[in-house]
Every structure is written in C-alpha cells, then in structure tokens.
C-alpha cells in the first residue's frame, strides 16, 4: 500500500534521499529550493513523486517555484482543483 503523506513530509523524505546532510529544520516557506540543494532536475523528480503518490498531474506550463512556500502553494492548489474527466 502506498502511504499518502502531506507535502511537507514529501519534501523532507525526498531531501533525505537526495542531499548529503539535509537541513530538515530549514524547510521553511521562505527557504529557496537552491539553498536546500534542490536543482531543476531534482525538482522534476520531486514533482513526479508527488504525482505518483497522489495520482494528480502537475501542469508543465506553470512557472517553476523558487521557494518552499511557492512549491507548497502550487501543490496545495493542485490538490484542491476539482477532478476533471
């Protein structure tokens, strides 16, 4: 069974697997993804993990987030979108 986690936990777990000595206490809204060690390829990996876990799709035409706050807001917006067929 796939465990559904919230988006903050998703980022924390992702960083544990991808970054040496991740500063989990620094995952705050104003932190930039760059300073957490998340580059553009890793951001795509993170988004794919979100999609795999939620079954939702993140549009490719939205501007890439630069901070944790922007990323969390984008993921929240996608979760809150009405399901479409």
């Amino acid at each position: 069974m796939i465990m559904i986690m919230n988006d903050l936990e998703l980022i924390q777990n992702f960083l544990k697997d991808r970054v040496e000595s991740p500063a989990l206490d620094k995952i705050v809204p104003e932190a930039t993804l760059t300073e957490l060690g998340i580059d553009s390829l890793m951001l795509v990996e993170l988004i794919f993990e979100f999609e795999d876990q939620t079954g939702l799709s993140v549009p490719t035409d939205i501007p890439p987030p630069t901070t944790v706050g922007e990323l969390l807001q984008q993921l929240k917006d996608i979760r809150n979108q009405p399901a479409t067929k």
Partner: protein
Amino acid sequence: MKKRRVAITGLGLVNPYGEGDVGDFFSRIMRGESAVRYHTLNDSPRPLALPLVACSHFNPIAVLGPPLANAMDRFSHFAMASAFSAWQDSGLEKHCNRDDYGVSWGTGSGGSLTIERGYQKLYFENKEKVSPLSVVLAMNNSAASHIAMQLGLGGPCNTSTVACASSSIAIGEAFRRIREGSVNLMLVGGSEAPLSYGVIRAWQAMRVLSEGDATTAYRACRPFSENRAGLTLAEGAAALVIEDWEHAVARGARIYAEIVGYGNTCDRTHIARPDSCGQVRSIAAALADGGLHADEIDYVNAHGTSTVEGDAIEIRSIKTAFGEHASKLAVSATKSMHGHSLGASGAMEALITTLALYRQVIPPTANVTEISADCKGVDHVINQGRTNVPVRAALSNSFAFGGSNAVLAFRSVSS
C-alpha cells in the same frame, strides 16, 4: 622531447568474490578460484538463470550514501566504489581540486539498466514518464563525471566506449597524456553493469555464452581448454591511479609498476570475428612503444574469453608476434575466474597484471582440463598461480567486437 615515465600508484575494484579488498581478490585469483555462480535474474519477465559473475553483495547505499547512490546508474556505483578505493590506496587527498589531474574511464554499454527500466515503464507499465534523471544516469560518461566531481579532478574527463577494449583504451590514452606531459595524474579504469534481461538475451542470441547449472557454473568459463564453450558475463569495476613518475616519487607514493607501452589497432575485417593480423600489429605496437624486446616479456594476460574461435586466434597472434619466445611465454586468461565484464575487463586485467609484476607471480587460467590443440604453443599457466618467478615485463590484451585491439605493456619497478 623526453618522454615522461608513468607510474601505477593506486589500485581499487569492486571485488566479485565479496567484501574483501584488492589483496583478497588477488589471492583468490592466484588460487584459481572462480567467482562464477549460477545466478537467477529476479526481475525478468521470464525465468532466466545462467552462469554469471554478479556482485550481489555490493550495496551502493552503504558504500556511497543515499544522495550519491540515488543519482547514479549501477555502472556508476561500481565506478565510484572502485575509484574511491584506488584513490585511497594511492594516498591522495579525497577532494583535491587539481586541474592537472583527470579521469579516463571505459564502459561498453554505460547505463543500460536505466534505459531498460525506462522501456519497462513506458511499454509495459503504461506509464507516460520516466525519471527526469534518465539521460544523466544512462549516458556513458556519467561515471567519469561523477568521479571527477567527487575527487575534484579538473583535467580531461573522457570516456571510451570500444566494447571489450573500452577500459584498456581508456588507460592507454591516459598513459599517453601523462607521458607527453599534458597532465600529471589520471584516475583510470572501467565499469560495467550488463546483467539485465534484455542485455543477457542479446548476448545469448549471439550464441557466445557458456551454459551450466548450479553444480557446474563455477567452471563455465574455461579459456584455451579443449572443452571451452563460450564466455561468462560479469558486472563490476576496476580503477587505477596512474601518474608521472617524478610526481609519484615527490609525494612518496608506493609504485606498483610502470606502464611503458600501448598498442591500438583495428582488424578492419569483420564486426565480430577477430583477425590475427590486427592483433599482431597491436602487440607489436605496444612492444615498440614501450621499447621492449619480445623476449623481455615474461607474462601475457590474454583477452581469453573462452570462445572457441577467439581463443585460438589470440594464441595464433601471440605466437606470430613473439616468434620463438612464445613457447617460453607464460600466458593466462583470468576471465576464467572474474568473468567477462566487457568494458571493465581491460581495467580488471590491468590491475591483475600490475599485481603480477609487483609480487613477481603469475596468475592462472582456471578450469582447464586439457589445453586445446588449437591453443598450444605458449607456456599456459593453468589452475594454480606460479610464485617466485621473475616477471620483468608483461602485456595485457583486450580484443573487442568491432575489431578494435588494445594492448598495454607494463614493466616491473625492480627491472
């Protein structure tokens, strides 16, 4: 311009026998112990079991940590582990930030596991996307790039993909760069991770893989033997640190042996069938490049894959290249024990040849019952290594599909 001498100062590998170090590996090689096992692929769509050398004990997370391990294909895992080991053995600083140091790596098929996994997701699991890291995981130069990043090597960072000669060519090209003076030190070697369903099926289709079962797998690879029946695929890696001789002496490094020559030719005849003329030219070129007379060579680590045709042609080449000296020339094919790791095999055999010179011993060809009539005419070292023998200079042969030949010439420090 005076040519610089090139010293070998570090050795590392992913030991196909288990957790042991380079010394453990070489001791087993000298005893004629086979690392080949009857291995079952667990993730294949149909049952597939055959004699292979699989580094099942190797845990990339434990060796490299999650961030590095998750950013690499298995062939890069092997590369990093062997490179770290060779670097440490050479007594160099972990992250040195040197632009006069570089990497020269060899691999035949690079990240084929990543590519195969991507195909599975797209074609069989009906997924629309693959990992965004797919390209950088699979590209053949990713192993060399990761080594350069981790060790801080800012000089040339190149990868040779020349089938089974890949890492011998990587070593030879790096040797030339150091000798000509454009760099001072190179981390060289090769890695391969070919044990996927698709890759093994492709090799089976060529009908060159030796068969066996759980009780006979260990002797599946028996080069030069009258009953030889094909090669045995292996995964793994080996790495060497090679450097300008004076640079090595200045920093007080242990010098295992010297690389003195490199021959590189093409048969220009057939894509898969080897040709003796091209091989002879490669051996002669390595001897000439190293300023060696044929009778100075005491040992040849043969390409010796255990195919019916290839082994006989290689022995014919050795006899032609060495003339009367051939009958006194010790020859062995260590693939009989560590298997054929394709693009990594040249580095694995360069490491073995280096230790043969350093310890003045000669490793054997294992699993030989009787030397085949078409492989006679040299001094075959079979089943048990020889100790306390003079080994002044040695060659390591790598003869690849595509007709590309690479021969490396080494000299003992004491000689």
